[in-house]
């Protein structure tokens, strides 16, 4: 069966030949126009004038538009109508688009954009957390606060107390393909847009709004992205809108791609956080209460900051049953790029908060941090986990516990009924030889004065579903042609995660045919409408189910026909091995399809899926926001040069839960990539804004993502072989985001190495750059 096979990504052959097309590779008509934004030179102020004469005079410039050219400024926001396409008087951040250049070539547009001068009456920008708090510059009326049991009382009653704080830096997505869009005007005011986006429906919606046409007049197509990671959930809107407006005004195709430099200056990044904690615990390391305060800089507009900050709160418990918890979350408005979705969506920051607490408690008590973690784990779900069948129809997540055991709930009151980290971590401790290596690290550190080693194990529990409940829906369109070939379309987008192939494997399995029969087509708002962003790791969960529903309708129609002709029951018709068997007779899949066609059976169907059982009140912080949890754990060993702060990862061992994987090869790829990206976030990737609000690290020369030479020399990745207890597609689990948090173990291993040269807990901030490590060693 195609499901569960380690097949290569569907377009792998096109990629290795260099013939896979991205937006910028699509051949354009010779009259295509090229666009570039002129950017604000300061972080805050009022525009007093624009000097665009030199830019306009450049040969090849066709038009330059400013706020004055739009009686009604199109909005680019995905949430709050607070992102004008071009600045309308006020400047909100350094890098904000102020004018739009239309030219005959990309280079001319870019040159003209640099020639334009923006005169501004500067204001003092709000850049830091302190400045934002002092000015009460925030989204929502005040902090969001959720409380689980009486935290103040539990803290007061706890035998031990400690407190601390961690700064957590943001992260640039650095998708290798920058933002890009292409708009092609069609007849009768219609518009076709190619966009490198995770959210074609949003692009369609925003473009229609800007053009004052119904959504039905706009078609958005996305074949693939050269990486997304959340950075193409909302950040592609301005480019698509600018292209569509130009195409509509001038009647010519228009294309825009950001240069890397512009991309880094204009677009939002992962939210940086400061998390403070007050902890009550006992002498064995059991955490009895935590009071967290989370502050995050959201940047100039709301974008997705509210659900991101919510998800940070939702992961403040990670894997631990903590009897009392209070979380206060401040979403601050600052004059910086609008922080946005990034793989994990706030979850990683929330998780790092509690992982820091566990480490701190262990250090305080002189216990192994792993032991402290294990003592605080949620209770293991009962039942034989390994080898659960792939397709029981009922949800088995609510398996009743034995008498007397109470189901534990998260601080937001969701029962944790599928916890597997006792078993999973236990296995990883063995395969990674954790305890022996812990001793070896201690011995090494005792013997070596300069090079110090560190070791850390980080468990991950990550909630799967969009927390905005209505987003948990998906559609699909499947056609079977009379020659037996199958065309599949769904609302999910491909950004390298392998979604298309995984879903095609589902389709092939439903028809019992080989995967080559299934043609995968670009995501297209004209085929499947009203889709959600491919985000929240939900791609294969949602779209896999929608495709399954569509395939089953067609298959069942064929089965009914064949059953009638053979006096059999439809459920006895078997589709397998590219054949169809019924009542002792057997035919090829093609023949069955041809027969259905001749008998006027519809061979096309749309499928729909909505995630069951979820409901959520984000103001109260109560409900079941997640259909299930995905789990994993990583052990990282590092070596640190205590004289320079230079360091490297020596070995990483990962055991990760993808349920019954739809495609283990692609899932392992997600895990490896996620871990490295997570480790990069917390070690080398540092975003630096100067006092004027200028992002100083706006190019790969100054912003360092992991390179091939940083890859851990020993890197063992395995899948936890256990089906999802929730009734997902073939009992698989989402895999996009959870592995990113495995990278936290690299950060905590560095902290462990630093601790070996200090008497006290190092309280390291992230990212742990060489400079910061050196400071922590010498402090």
């Amino acid at each position: 069966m195609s499901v569960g096979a380690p097949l290569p990504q569907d377009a792998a052959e096109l990629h290795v030949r260099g013939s896979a097309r991205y937006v910028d590779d699509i051949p354009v008509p010779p009259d295509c126009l090229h666009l570039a934004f002129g950017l604000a030179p300061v972080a805050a102020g009022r525009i007093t004038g624009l000097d665009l004469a030199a830019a306009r005079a450049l040969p090849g410039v066709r038009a330059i538009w400013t706020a004055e050219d739009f009686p009604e400024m199109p909005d680019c926001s995905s949430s709050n109508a607070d992102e004008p396409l071009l600045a309308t008087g006020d400047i909100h951040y350094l890098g904000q688009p102020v004018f739009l250049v239309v030219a005959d070539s990309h280079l001319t547009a870019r040159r003209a954009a640099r020639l334009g001068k923006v005169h501004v009456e500067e204001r003092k920008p709000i850049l830091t957390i302190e400045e934002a708090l002092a000015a009460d510059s925030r989204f929502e009326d005040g902090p969001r606060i959720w409380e689980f049991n009486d935290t103040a009382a539990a803290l007061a009653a706890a035998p031990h107390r400690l407190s601390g704080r961690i700064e957590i830096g943001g992260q640039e997505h650095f998708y290798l393909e920058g933002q890009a869009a292409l708009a092609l005007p069609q007849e009768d005011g219609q518009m076709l847009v190619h966009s490198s986006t995770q959210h074609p429906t949003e692009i369609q919606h925003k473009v229609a709004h800007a053009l004052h046409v119904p959504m039905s007049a706009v078609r958005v197509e996305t074949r693939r992205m050269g990486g997304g990671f959340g950075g193409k959930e909302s950040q592609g809107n301005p480019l698509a809108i600018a292209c569509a407006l130009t195409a509509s005004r001038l009647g010519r195709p228009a294309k825009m791609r950001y240069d890397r430099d512009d991309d880094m200056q204009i677009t939002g990044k992962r939210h940086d956080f400061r998390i403070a904690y007050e902890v009550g615990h006992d002498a064995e390391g059991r955490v009895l209460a935590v009071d967290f305060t989370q502050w995050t800089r959201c940047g100039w507009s709301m974008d997705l900051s509210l659900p991101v900050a919510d998800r940070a709160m939702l992961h403040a418990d990670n894997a631990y049953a903590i009897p009392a918890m209070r979380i206060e979350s401040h979403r601050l408005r600052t004059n910086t790029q609008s922080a946005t979705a990034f793989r994990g969506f706030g979850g990683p920051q929330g998780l790092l908060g509690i992982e820091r607490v566990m480490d701190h408690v262990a250090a305080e008590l002189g216990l192994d941090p792993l032991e402290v973690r294990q003592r605080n784990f949620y209770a293991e779900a009962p039942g034989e986990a390994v080898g659960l069948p792939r397709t029981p129809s009922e949800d088995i997540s609510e398996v009743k516990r034995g008498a007397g055991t109470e189901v534990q709930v998260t601080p937001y009151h969701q029962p944790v009924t599928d916890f597997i980290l006792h078993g999973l971590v236990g296995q990883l401790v063995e395969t990674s030889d954790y305890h022996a290596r812990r001793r070896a690290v201690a011995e090494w550190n005792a013997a070596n004065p300069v090079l110090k080693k560190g070791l850390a194990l980080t468990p991950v529990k990550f909630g799967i579903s969009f927390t905005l409940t209505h987003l948990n829906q998906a559609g699909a369109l499947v056609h079977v042609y009379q020659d037996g070939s199958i065309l599949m379309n769904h609302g999910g987008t491909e950004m390298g995660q392998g979604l298309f192939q995984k879903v095609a494997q589902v389709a092939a399995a439903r028809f019992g045919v080989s995967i080559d029969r299934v043609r995968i087509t670009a995501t297209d708002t004209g085929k499947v409408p009203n889709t959600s962003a491919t985000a929240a790791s939900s791609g294969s969960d949602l779209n896999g189910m929608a495709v399954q529903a569509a395939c089953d309708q067609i298959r069942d129609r064929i089965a009914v026909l064949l059953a009638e002709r053979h006096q059999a029951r439809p459920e006895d018709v078997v589709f397998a091995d590219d054949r169809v068997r019924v009542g002792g007779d057997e035919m090829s899949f093609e023949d069955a399809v041809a027969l259905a066609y001749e008998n006027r059976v519809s061979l096309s169907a749309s499928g729909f899926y909505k995630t069951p059982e979820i409901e959520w009140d984000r103001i109260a912080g109560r409900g079941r926001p997640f259909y299930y949890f995905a789990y994993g754990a990583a052990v990282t060993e590092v070596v640190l040069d205590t004289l320079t702060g230079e360091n490297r990862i020596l070995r990483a061992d990962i055991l990760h839960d993808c349920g019954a994987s739809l495609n283990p090869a692609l899932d392992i790829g997600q895990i490896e990539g996620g871990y490295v990206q997570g480790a990069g976030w917390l070690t080398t990737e540092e975003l630096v804004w100067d006092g004027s609000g200028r992002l100083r690290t706006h190019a790969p020369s100054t912003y360092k993502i992991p390179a091939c030479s940083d890859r851990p020399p020993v890197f063992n990745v395995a899948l936890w072989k256990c089906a999802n207890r929730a009734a997902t597609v073939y009992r698989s689990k989402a895999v996009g985001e959870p592995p990113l948090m495995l990278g936290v173990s690299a950060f905590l291993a560095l902290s462990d190495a630093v601790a070996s040269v200090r008497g006290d807990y190092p309280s390291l901030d992230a990212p742990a750059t060489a400079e910061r490590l050196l400071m922590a060693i010498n402090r």
Partner: protein
Amino acid sequence: MSKMHLKLTVNGQAEELRVEPRELLIHVLREKLNITGPHIGCETSHCGACTVEMNGKSVKSCTVFAAQADGAEVTTIEGLSPLGEMNVLQNAFREHHGLQCGFCTPGMITRAHRLLQENPTPTAEEVRFGMAGNLCRCTGYQNIVKAILAAASEMNAAKEAAE
């Protein structure tokens, strides 16, 4: 700026065109010759997405001016399998899942191709450092290194069999 007459061979095909001398090779390839395998990731020589071979060396085509490419012999990803069959490296990247979004892939393979010409039996360490100029944001490099090592041993086995 006055235009120059540029003559070069790309993937075995002689090309003649008029360009500005300071135009970058990556733009000549992509915009003038419609060769879109090499990608633009940064245009500042940091990411390697634009890697091609020029006169037997790996170059980042975003740092090569058209004038410097005059008379050169250039091979892009499209030139690695001129007869249609994928070459060993291309196959290995596919089989060993050495790609996700694929945007870095043409540059990666072109670079790896040169690396294996220069060092047909590299260690994992040599591959890691030999590929350090090509960034990938998706894979974490594990499968890229695996693919290159697998291609090297396959090429060497084929060579031995032929001897």
